């Protein structure tokens, strides 16, 4: 013991280099970014967040981002710089639920306050301007911060009728036009929520407006903070990563940051021991439900859903859907309205062609027909080939 292994040496060397890079980048940022509007520490005090809570939060966020503890001060510094990152927030076909979920909470935690301080150069729901004035604000923002701002998008893009299912502003531009214009000048595009990421309910079958996610419509790479709504930590964490390293975090094949969407709900669910034990809630409110057994048989889609809800939880870590007693609906997956249906039954109970026909019913009928057919063939063969072997 005592001596460091080769592995440990490599690791500490790699993290040393990463740290040096991070420091260099943040100094560079310090020079180029606009001055902070408010001092973050005073703001936290005003909102009743103690220094201790803030330090605790930095530890949590550092681990969540899969960084070693030495990065805690950097996370704290990035949080202080948060309000200096210019953000343009666009709304397309959506319900504003993501904004609501992120900006409203009864006991705001550090993530929520960070989002309150974010330097929103343009946010259709929050800004006072309207009409031509709003239009001017947007143009000014994207020109002033050309190539530097982060474009956050909430909502899917309808492509039907030449995009005219969604027109915005006094000039009646289509969503697709606005999206093209703004994203082409952004440093990075972050899709918040499943609508902008994958189309969500607007794109569910039969999808009359031909809606789809931003990445699919524009053919660009976007960071997809999927969820309906997503967890605020997944968004702030991604922005913190951008502030610290000047680059977006590693993404999975669907554009979701792997630090948040790398594993399934089912892999970290607190009801998982009941799944493995064979203890399931059979119907709502039964004995198993009272004992917090696994919700698999009442349609939990946790086994098919990549997200960190079971670890991070919602509302300051108070609870999350499965803890609340309803199965996961799979809202971070593309096309979940169609692929996860029926939401309160297991996958195999999906019906085919309407009505009651499930795979198991169709399979059982086909098997019965085949057995009957084979038996009939056997009978006929006995007649046809009778006596042939007595030559």
């Amino acid at each position: 013991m005592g001596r460091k292994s080769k592995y440990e040496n490599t690791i500490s060397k790699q993290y040393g280099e990463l740290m040096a890079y991070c420091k260099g980048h943040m100094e560079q940022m310090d020079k180029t970014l606009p001055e902070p509007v408010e001092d973050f520490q005073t703001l936290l005090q005003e909102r009743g967040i103690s220094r201790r809570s803030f330090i605790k939060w930095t530890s949590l966020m550092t681990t969540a981002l899969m960084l070693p503890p030495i990065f805690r001060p950097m996370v704290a510094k990035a949080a202080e710089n948060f309000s200096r990152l210019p953000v343009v927030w666009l709304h397309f076909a959506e319900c504003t639920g993501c904004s609501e979920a992120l900006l409203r909470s009864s006991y705001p935690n550090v993530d929520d306050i960070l989002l309150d301080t974010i330097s929103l150069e343009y946010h259709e729901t929050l800004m006072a301007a309207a009409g031509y004035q709003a239009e001017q604000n947007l143009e000014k923002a994207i020109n002033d911060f050309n190539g530097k701002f982060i474009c956050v998008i909430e909502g899917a893009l309808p492509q039907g009728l030449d995009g005219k299912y969604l027109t915005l502003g006094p000039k009646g531009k289509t969503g697709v036009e606005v999206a093209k214009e703004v994203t082409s000048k952004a440093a990075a595009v972050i899709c918040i929520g499943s609508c902008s990421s994958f189309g969500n309910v607007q794109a569910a079958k039969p999808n009359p407006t031909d809606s789809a996610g931003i990445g699919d419509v524009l053919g660009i790479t976007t960071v997809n903070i999927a969820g309906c709504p997503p967890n605020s930590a997944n968004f702030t964490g991604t922005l913190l990563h951008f502030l610290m390293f000047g680059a977006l975090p590693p993404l999975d094949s669907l554009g979701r940051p792997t630090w948040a969407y790398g594993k399934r709900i089912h892999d970290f669910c607190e009801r998982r021991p009941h799944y493995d034990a064979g203890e399931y809630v059979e119907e709502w409110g039964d004995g198993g439900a009272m004992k917090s057994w696994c919700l698999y048989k009442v349609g939990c889609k946790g086994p098919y859903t990549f997200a960190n809800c079971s670890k991070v939880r919602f509302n300051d870590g108070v609870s999350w859907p499965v803890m609340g007693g309803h199965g996961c609906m799979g809202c971070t997956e593309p096309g979940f309205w169609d692929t996860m249906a029926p939401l309160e039954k297991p996958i195999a109970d999906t019906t085919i062609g309407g009505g009651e026909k499930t795979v198991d019913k169709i399979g059982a009928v086909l098997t019965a027909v085949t057995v009957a057919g084979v038996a009939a063939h056997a009978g006929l063969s006995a007649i046809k080939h009778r006596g042939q072997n007595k030559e």
Partner: protein
Amino acid sequence: METIVPKKEWSVAIRLNHWSTVVAIFILIATGFYIAAPFTVNAGETVNKFLMGDVRFWHIFFGVLLVFAFLWRVYLAFFSRFHADWKDFFAWTDKKNFIKQIKFYLLISKERPDHNYLYGPLQSLAYAGLLFLLFLIVLTGLILLGAGYHAGWTSLVYTLVKPFENLMGGLAVVRWIHHILTWCFILFIVVHVYMAFWYDAVLQEGTISSMISGKVFRKNHSK
């Protein structure tokens, strides 16, 4: 004079491969249906129970066995030292024999089509289709497996099969396809086992025992 001549039809490798596939598939169907629609174990304390855990263990154990059995079968089709039979999977290309075979099966004619290949024309289609089914269930199985285990070979294989997961539309769809394929196997087994018995009874060449002993018994009409 009529003599009965034993002819070696199947190598040891093919026979071993066939029966390990059979055992694996039967266990996979049983454990798979439990995973799809588990019953609740009410008695006892949670800490002492691990039914789903065990069932999943055996499903994955025989699943991985089936993966290797499948790869081995494909290897044998090309490189078997006894008889590499990949060409025989194209027996259905012989149109004339194809018609004859259908007539024979539908009991319209008693004339047995010549066996120019190891398999009959319909048999070749069925087995080629079956190897394809095996490929699909192995692929979907490996996706479902990789999604839950994040280390070692499993995660390595998962990076290879992940694009297929996205192509199919996510894990939920993969799971559903896996379930549909299970029924395809059940249907296949009914017909396949029946046909084995049928051939055995009609041709009297020992088709069933051939998969065990490796030999069929051909009647030789000496002139």
